[in-house]
């Protein structure tokens, strides 16, 4: 997992590269938590354009970060999932709480 970060105004965009599964979940979770703590007042966009695979371990990572941000009154979005990832996120009900840009 590789993550690149862009910041503009009060929005941080994290671009995820590679595959998000149980193996890469922990480092992804830790990295995003640091990012959330560093930019205290920003909303978070997870840009999945360069993420080639995600299974339900990724759902756990995303929902966990969403809960953290929400408890701070901050927002989270996902963007550009491929068809496989879109299917996993749709099935899990993720889109009922997190908006796809």
């Amino acid at each position, binding site marked *: 997992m590789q993550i690149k970060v862009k910041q503009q105004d009060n929005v941080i965009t994290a671009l995820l590269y590679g595959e998000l*599964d*149980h193996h890469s979940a922990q480092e992804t979770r830790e990295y995003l938590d640091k990012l959330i703590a560093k930019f205290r007042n920003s909303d978070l966009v997870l840009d999945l354009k360069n993420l080639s*695979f995600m*299974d339900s371990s990724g759902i756990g990572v995303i929902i966990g970060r969403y809960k953290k941000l929400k408890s701070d009154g901050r927002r989270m979005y996902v963007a550009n999932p491929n068809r496989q990832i879109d299917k996993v996120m749709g099935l899990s009900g993720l889109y009922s709480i997190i908006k796809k840009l």
Partner: protein
Amino acid sequence: MEIKNTMELRLPSLSINEGFARSVVGAFATQLNPTLEEVADIKTAVSEAVTNAIIHAYPDRIGEIVISASLSGQTLEVSISDKGVGISDIEQARQPFFSTAGDESRSGMGFTVMETFMDEVTVISAPGEGTTVRMLKTIKTQG
């Protein structure tokens, strides 16, 4: 005569093997000329089953996971077996959002993903003996 192809993969329950396992089964299934979406479905389902074995079957030790697959006609059959702790209540384990992993490492959606992405999912398990998840998917013949 119809030729049946088979393969078997034995791996220690290390999380680094999750990507390898799903890639191998996905590559094996390409012999049936599936669409990219069908390959992605198979890889996702295998990833869920292998991850379950790594997290739940062997919570405190590294054990062996056996992945066997066969192609018969247009149907892929894949089994993921472990000799770990087993599942005491299979029906409960298959419920959406049910998880015994408390650290949000899983969303409780593993079996739901397998059932949605494959045509048939059978779980055989006994506490203390291990678990086998057997999944079938028929690849539609390309026009």
